[in-house]
């Protein structure tokens, strides 16, 4: 379908497709099996300028937004949702700096994230604080010009390999949810180490690590926005990043369907290709319809968000204020509800599509020789991370209730 893409958007798809087809596809099985980090592929993303597609040109990016990021992430995930992930995790580390960073922090961190010289990561989860981030136990105590961080964060995607980590710790435990703050921590900072590496069902080409902080001194200059605004930083980031997960999910779904359609046209049973049977035909049709519906929701939401966000980013650059403050000045609306809808719809679609694809391919679909089972394993995480889909539904309904109440209904 023609979504009226700009030249840049079309080129992003083309560049990502070439990397996916020529570089990622031949090594997909290798990285899934070995759980190694795909550095040669990350190098391709870097050389192709993909890490900066959503960042302003002022920082060396391509001047796009969430839509551009989504297009790249979708196309790469169509071949492998695990190898594509460094693009997503790096954006999850960059977006909070773009939105809540001071002009100095933006200039210090964003150029190297835009070029891919450094990889970003983001970690809010703790063993006791998953969906309930207010239960954060890691602490950050101000001492002179530093904060001293202690505690354990877990399930950090691109862990150990990324260079810059946006992490959350409580600067004032007594204040609970309003005592949590966000910091940028650089790899190599004394007292910052990596604990357990998780063994996962899917996205195995991306390492998931525990982050361990032991009297780790982080300069106060690395505090994002203000003390106590951590959950605000997280929510503002998720508003813009969740469509990316929708894009990853759609890419995974499309990749599974591409393989399944080709197989169903070739595989003969009862003397005819299985694609000619109505039972298979209807499943193929439902899969394609779900994907296209998800894509329409993703693209229209991402485009609308970017149209509203870009003036705020421009104002922030011009007046040298945080983007978040510029958004308040311009009364830029929040996208919590819509971005949650994109994430829920696309990830649920991906799980259904990939499960049905395995079913359509039958026995061979279940085997590791054939890539469809991998798409199914990779799809599952998209319903879980960056806020489980149940939490997304809570957010959608709570925004609906708030909106109705504000209209006096």
């Amino acid at each position, binding site marked *: 379908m023609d979504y009226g893409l700009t*030249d*840049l958007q079309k*080129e*992003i798809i*083309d*560049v990502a497709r*070439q*990397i996916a087809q*020529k*570089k990622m596809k031949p090594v997909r099985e290798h990285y899934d099996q070995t759980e190694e980090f795909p550095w040669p592929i990350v190098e*391709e993303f870097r*050389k*192709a*300028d*993909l890490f900066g*597609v959503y960042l302003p040109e002022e920082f060396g990016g*391509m001047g796009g937004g969430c839509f551009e990021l989504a297009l790249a992430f979708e196309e790469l995930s169509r071949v492998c949702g695990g190898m594509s992930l460094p693009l997503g995790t790096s954006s999850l580390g960059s977006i909070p700096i773009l939105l809540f960073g001071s002009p100095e922090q933006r200039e210090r961190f964003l150029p190297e994230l835009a070029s891919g010289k450094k990889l970003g990561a983001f970690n809010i989860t703790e063993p006791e604080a998953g969906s309930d981030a207010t239960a954060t136990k890691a602490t950050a105590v101000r001492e002179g010009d530093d904060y001293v961080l202690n505690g354990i964060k877990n399930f950090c995607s691109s862990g150990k390999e990324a260079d810059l980590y946006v992490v959350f710790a409580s600067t004032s435990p007594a204040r609970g949810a309003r005592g949590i703050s966000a910091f940028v921590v650089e790899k190599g900072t004394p007292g910052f180490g990596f604990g357990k590496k998780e063994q996962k069902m899917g996205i195995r080409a991306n390492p998931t690590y525990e982050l361990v902080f032991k009297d780790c001194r982080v300069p106060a200059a690395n505090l994002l926005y203000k003390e106590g605004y951590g959950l605000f930083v997280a929510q503002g980031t998720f508003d813009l990043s969740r469509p990316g997960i929708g894009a990853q999910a759609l890419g995974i779904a499309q990749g599974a369907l591409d393989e399944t359609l080709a197989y169903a046209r070739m595989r003969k049973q009862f003397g005819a290709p299985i694609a000619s049977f109505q039972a298979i035909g209807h499943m193929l049709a439902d899969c394609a319809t779900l994907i296209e519906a998800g894509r329409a929701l993703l693209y229209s939401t991402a485009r609308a968000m970017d149209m509203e966000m870009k003036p705020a980013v421009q104002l922030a650059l011009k007046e040298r204020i945080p983007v978040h403050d510029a958004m308040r000045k311009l009364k830029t609306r929040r996208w919590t509800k819509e971005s949650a809808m994109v994430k829920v719809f696309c990830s649920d679609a991906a799980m259904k599509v990939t499960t049905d694809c395995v079913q359509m391919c039958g026995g061979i679909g279940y085997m590791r020789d054939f890539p469809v089972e991998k798409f199914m394993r990779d799809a599952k995480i998209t319903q879980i991370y960056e806020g489980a889909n149940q939490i997304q539904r809570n957010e959608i309904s709570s925004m609906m209730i708030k909106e109705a109440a504000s209209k006096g209904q």
Partner: protein
Amino acid sequence: MMSLQLFVCVKQTPSSTSVAVDSTGRIQTDLPMALNPLDEYAVEETLRLKERVAGSKSAALSLGAPSAEEALRATLALGIDSAVLLCDDAFKGGDSFATAYLLSMALRKLGAGGPGCFVLTGKQTNDGESGQVGPQIAAWLGWPSVTSVRKITEVSDASITVERAVEDGIETLTLAAPAVLSVTKEINEPRLPSLKGKMAAKRAAVAKWGASDLGADASLIGLSSPCAVAKLSPVPSRAGGEAVPGSTPEEKAKNLAEKLKELKLL
């Protein structure tokens, strides 16, 4: 060392591997087109030579339909500095002799020649597959040429030393500059384009030259060129093969050997 003056000749060809030929021998015309795959290696090697010797310049040339501008833009996106498209109705129907003649005229017009000048081409195209255009360009210019280059070992203003794969081994040859080289796909792994490269290539100017710009002799080009395609027929589709049974590789190999003996092929 002086900087190099590099040229790469490319062609836009059908990117599909299944090209339909109708009963009259005409090729299906609405095919997706792209840079000839073997030319990607020539472009990459040109870029590597350019990066190897500071201050070097590179230009891409193509003879083709107006749409061949896209193939030239693809080379600009990868880092080639400038591009010229040779495009004229008078060029239609030309063979490799005419193509090489026109490319040699364009190279003369671009001032090619002298120390440090090298022209690269792919080994052959995936449509015509003659593999003759590179050596014929050299013949028109009176330069040395070498085909099937799999490695460039040394380069200077005066000469270029290359390895060439031949049936019973490897030849190492040194050619005096200027020279024409056609390269094989063993020579490198072509890079992929960057977004910044592609966006800049969209805005870049591609020069377009016709017969009069080149001062080409009309009796040597287009339908006047010596070769014409008499007939083109599609490759007959293969009948289905036979799967050799066996549960282990060893068993399959044993069954295959028996089958080949049965057919008196072993």
